[in-house]
């Protein structure tokens, strides 16, 4: 909400405070000041100038040669306005003055050969309107030489306030002033409500209109006024509205907005003569397919909206916007003024349903004080009378419009004033202010209008009555907050909480995630954090109907929640390739969730398992499954600074990192299994199995996938299911071995088909149960050549033997090597050459 400082000053005496000081006060009250805009529309001498002489310009019939008295001297000014005349008091901008925040600078000018010192101003030059036809005529009682700001308050400061949704009471100048006055210990601001009924007693009449309310309208007030002719909105009022963020539309609408900004009470004016039946108004809910055309010209099909009706015809969306058919216009002679009070929920639903967030709905959603409706009615009549003088400038008006008495209809059960007991001991403990006195509590709450109704003798229990406008004060803790807020958070001495010692118990995955991230970053991979929103084509393993789809995605092209962060991560490869003029190696990892409704997915562990039983609603949809993934990609690398690494080198770098990762995280018994993940290369991919459980997939990325994403070069990937990894972590247990006898080695070569993976050899050797002294082995070479056939490869192993009991002889070793050779050969897929 924007507020004008000029206007605010009418409510609370803050003239001596700077903008920043006002902002600090509001901030410390919980009203955040988002910005302060200082409007210096005019600078220098822009004063009331009297035209003491006006003659035609000798060389131009349309121009006047004026002598303007500025209180000290006469100045020669040339002006082309038709309303120039001797004795007129005009806005005179002297040489050196600036207008429209510096856009116009006044200099000495020569017009048709005659010098002009400054300018007599029209509305457009002050930025008040587009009007350039005539110069502004100031009232006769304006003092010559005085700044025009008194008459046209152009200079101001605008404070943009962020009012939290619990503080509907602060959505008005009155409300903000109340808060400031409480903080500054000033007198409480009150509205100078004229007593319209007393002053208009002779003209007041009783309104003949039957008002019917439903349960969601607790108060409806109505007054009829015969509208005097109001042709203009005064400058000062227009400026105040605009600075409060409300456009000036017409004098009547402006009055309605002005009073709403003053009091916080939304109002609506009806053209009485356009009502289907001026003798009856009803508040009711819309029936199916009823329609109303709102003031903004939109025809709205209604659906459970709260309506204002006349003779059963909808004439407005209650609390949101009035109807076009009964809109006031220049021809309007008699108006009905509505100041009502509606339940927040239906207003909120209507505003949401019709995407019609109005100043009125904003306030009703946050609740409006019942006490302001009648006050606002009085203010409306006051301003109608003021404006009926049709003065552009502030000044008294003697006008008295013919107005009815205010018709007030209340719902049967009106909210009663709330009384809350505050315990002195509780507030002391709660705020950590052991020495707080009851007297201090009472003094502070009194400034906020909380009336002390009763207290116990020991002052332990203080009973307060909540002012009618504080809808947010319901229980004791609310009073505690009110005290703390006004007393000042900064005046509470901080303390350090005292805890019993206890060991921390982290949730699953907390440590694993931290260790994993450090591991991969240390290995040369950069962590990415990415948005989890994806397109259908970026779902990896679940079908669209099993994926989690958003009702209101931020980007219509990305309506799904990722089922793994794999594709978002891959997209960063494309992005970085596109952003770089030279291809470079990239190595990324990310830890993120995958979401799905696929029942075959295993659910990660969450604290919510126990709390879901406490859900108050039943028949809720099942929770989507959330699984933690670690995705890693690398590729495009060059070796050191010059040569391209071979494909294999790049892949094995990733594999080496993966193997080391498993070991570091305490995962034993890693096996590779066949895999057919379409994101990976059809042949060069493997599933990673740990103790028989699938934990992820590793391999070359699918050339098709890379092509489709316009990624250059080869990339390699690893995707791990961290929930599975977490479950497979073990602590290392091993025994030290003392090598008392020397180790011997034998090299051993055989030929096998290209298609035989090394893991097959490993598995076979492992099942060779006659091995006695074979401790370990190492792959030393892979040879390919014509002599062994194009389909084959030759592998060389170096086998290491050692006994715990003796030094092995060549013979011992030969025996065992032969036995192994025979065993391998038996399998049928290796041969010796």
């Amino acid at each position, binding site marked *: 909400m924007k507020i004008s400082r000029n206007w605010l000053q009418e409510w609370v005496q803050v003239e001596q405070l700077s903008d920043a000081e006002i902002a600090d006060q509001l901030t410390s009250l919980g009203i*955040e000041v988002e910005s302060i805009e200082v409007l210096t529309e005019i600078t220098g001498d822009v004063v009331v100038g009297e035209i003491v002489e006006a003659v035609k310009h000798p060389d131009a019939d349309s121009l006047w040669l004026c002598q303007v008295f500025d209180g000290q001297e006469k100045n020669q000014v040339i002006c082309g306005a038709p309303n120039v005349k001797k004795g007129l008091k005009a806005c005179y901008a002297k040489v050196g003055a600036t207008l429209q925040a510096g856009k116009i600078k006044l200099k000495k000018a020569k017009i048709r050969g005659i010098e002009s010192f400054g300018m007599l101003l029209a509305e457009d030059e002050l930025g008040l309107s587009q009007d350039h036809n005539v110069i502004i005529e100031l009232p006769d009682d304006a003092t010559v030489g005085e700044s025009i700001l008194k008459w046209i308050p152009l200079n101001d400061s605008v404070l943009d306030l962020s009012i939290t949704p619990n503080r509907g009471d602060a959505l008005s100048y009155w409300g903000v002033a109340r808060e400031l006055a409480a903080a500054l210990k000033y007198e409480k601001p009150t509205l100078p409500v004229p007593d319209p009924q007393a002053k208009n007693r002779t003209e007041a009449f009783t309104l003949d209109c039957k008002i019917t309310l439903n349960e969601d309208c607790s108060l409806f007030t109505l007054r009829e006024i015969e509208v005097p002719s109001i042709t203009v909105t005064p400058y000062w009022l227009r400026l105040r509205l605009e600075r409060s963020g409300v456009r000036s539309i017409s004098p009547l609408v402006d009055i309605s907005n002005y009073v709403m900004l003053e009091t916080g009470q939304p109002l609506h004016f009806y053209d009485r003569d356009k009502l289907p039946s001026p003798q009856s108004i009803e508040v009711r809910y819309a029936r199916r397919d009823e329609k109303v055309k709102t003031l903004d010209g939109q025809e709205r099909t209604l659906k459970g909206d709260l309506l204002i009706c006349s003779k059963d015809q909808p004439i407005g969306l209650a609390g949101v916007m009035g109807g076009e058919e009964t809109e006031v216009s220049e021809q309007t002679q008699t108006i009905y003024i509505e100041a009502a009070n509606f339940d927040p929920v239906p207003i909120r639903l209507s505003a949401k349903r019709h995407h019609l967030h109005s100043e009125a709905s904003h306030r009703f959603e946050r609740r409006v004080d019942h006490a302001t409706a009648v006050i606002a009615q009085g203010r409306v009549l006051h301003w109608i009378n003021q404006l009926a003088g049709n003065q552009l400038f502030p000044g008294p008006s003697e006008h008295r419009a013919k107005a009815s008495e205010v018709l007030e209809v209340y719902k049967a059960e009106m909210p009663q004033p709330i009384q809350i007991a505050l315990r002195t001991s509780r507030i002391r403990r709660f705020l950590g202010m052991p020495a707080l006195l009851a007297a201090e509590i009472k003094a502070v709450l009194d400034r906020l209008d909380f009336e002390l109704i009763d207290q116990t003798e020991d002052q332990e229990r203080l009973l307060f009555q909540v002012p009618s406008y504080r809808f947010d004060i319901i229980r004791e803790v609310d009073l505690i907050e009110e005290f703390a807020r006004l007393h000042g958070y900064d005046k509470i001495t*901080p*303390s350090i909480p005292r805890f019993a010692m206890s060991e921390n118990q982290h949730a699953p995955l907390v440590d694993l995630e931290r260790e994993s991230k450090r591991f991969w970053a240390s290995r040369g991979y950069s*962590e990415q954090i990415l*948005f989890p929103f994806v397109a259908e084509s970026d779902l990896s393993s679940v079908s669209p109907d099993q994926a989690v789809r958003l009702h209101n995605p931020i980007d219509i092209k990305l309506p799904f929640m990722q089922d793994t962060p794999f594709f978002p991560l891959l997209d960063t490869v494309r992005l970085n390739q596109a952003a770089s003029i030279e291809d470079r190696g990239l190595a990324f990892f990310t830890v993120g969730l995958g979401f799905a409704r696929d029942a075959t997915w295993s659910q990660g562990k969450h604290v919510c398992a126990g709390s879901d039983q406490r859900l108050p609603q039943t028949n809720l949809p099942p929770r989507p499954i959330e699984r933690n993934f670690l995705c890693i990609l690398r590729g495009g690398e060059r070796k050191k600074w010059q040569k391209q690494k071979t494909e294999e080198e790049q892949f094995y770098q990733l594999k080496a990192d993966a193997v080391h990762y498993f070991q570091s995280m305490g995962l034993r018994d890693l096996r590779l299994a066949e895999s057919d993940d379409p994101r990976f290369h059809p042949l060069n991919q493997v599933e990673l199995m740990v103790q028989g459980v699938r934990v992820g997939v590793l391999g070359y990325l699918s050339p098709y996938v890379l092509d489709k994403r316009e990624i250059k070069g080869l990339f390699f990937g690893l995707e791990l299911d961290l929930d599975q990894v977490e479950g497979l972590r073990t602590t290392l247990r091993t025994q030290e071995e003392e090598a008392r006898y020397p180790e011997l080695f034998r090299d051993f070569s055989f030929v096998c088909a290209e298609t035989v993976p090394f893991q097959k050899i490993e598995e076979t050797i492992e099942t060779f149960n006659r091995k006695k002294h074979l401790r370990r082995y190492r792959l030393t070479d892979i040879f390919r050549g014509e002599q062994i056939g194009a389909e084959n490869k030759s592998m060389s192993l170096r086998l290491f033997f050692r006994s715990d009991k003796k030094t092995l002889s060549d013979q011992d070793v030969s025996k065992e090597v032969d036995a192994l050779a025979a065993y391998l050969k038996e399998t049928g897929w290796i041969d010796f050459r």
Partner: protein
Amino acid sequence: MSEDNGNSAINFSEQVKSIRDEFSQCRTSLGSADLKVRFLGKKGSLQGLYQGLRHVEDKKSAGQEIHQLKEFLEHEIQALEGQESAEHLKTLAAKKVDLSLPCQETVGSLHPVTLMKQLLIEKFERIGFSVKNGPEIDYDFFNFGALNFPDDHPARDMQDTFFTEDQMVLRTHTSNVQIHTMFTEPPPIRVVVPGRTYRHDSDATHTPMFHQLEALVVDEGISFADLKGFIQFLCASVFGSGCKTRLRPSFFPFTEPSAEVDVLFEYEKDGKKVSKWLEIGGSGMVHPNVFEACGIDSEKYTGFAFGFGIDRMAMLYFGLTDLRALFSGKVDLLERFPVHLNHVQAVTAG
């Protein structure tokens, strides 16, 4: 060795001479190390002479002879050593490697948000907090209802919410884990919850996904003054002991009193010291309605909770100015960050 004492002197001289000859013969073929062993070692020629000395009459002159020989050998070998090491250096020089050449192309790094998150978590761990996590897609009840957000209340507009097609919500804050924790663990509670959160908002200062760190303390006798002291302690341990914090009244449905947390950042601008309060999160005393929704006695227990914007704090900490760049995936930004953050003095933003 001869027992003939008369010849011993001559023999001795001859022996000395033969050693000298032998040395000049093999000095070119053997290296200094081998020569040392052969002539000066424990079983070397010189040692043999010393042993023969007891058979010599004129021990004095023989002794002098040995001494001269020893000096000669030592001098020669030393010279040779010098020569050798010069040669060795020459060979080494031929193999000199330019250690300044660049090495690996990719530099590993942790994301600044992760660094900030871990820095914060470590502070909490040290004083006994447990780190918890929770679902990112949750029921309205856990994200709003139990946190004292009434249905159809404008307080819900404070957090633009993503809904799934079946009306679950992407959690708008990590505070849903407050509820999950209080439903499953009895007080005293001391937990910290870092995590991703989502709001339907995307502009220069908001991203649809961002990170929060939630802390919840529930115990007997926890006060608002404790909250103030705790936040001051935490910020000082992250941003340095001179860090100033401020609590400013605000409104969150699930805390009361509620407060925004501001940190005073001091930095230089045009050579002048400037300071500015910057908001890093929201805080407050757990609202009794929340305790009651979770079945905790709000008379017996009090507590505080706060939620910090990790992304915002990371930006302040590292001097970053563009929030969206954090999640843009640009490798040249990411690689500027380290793998571990330890006692790095904060760089403050302008």
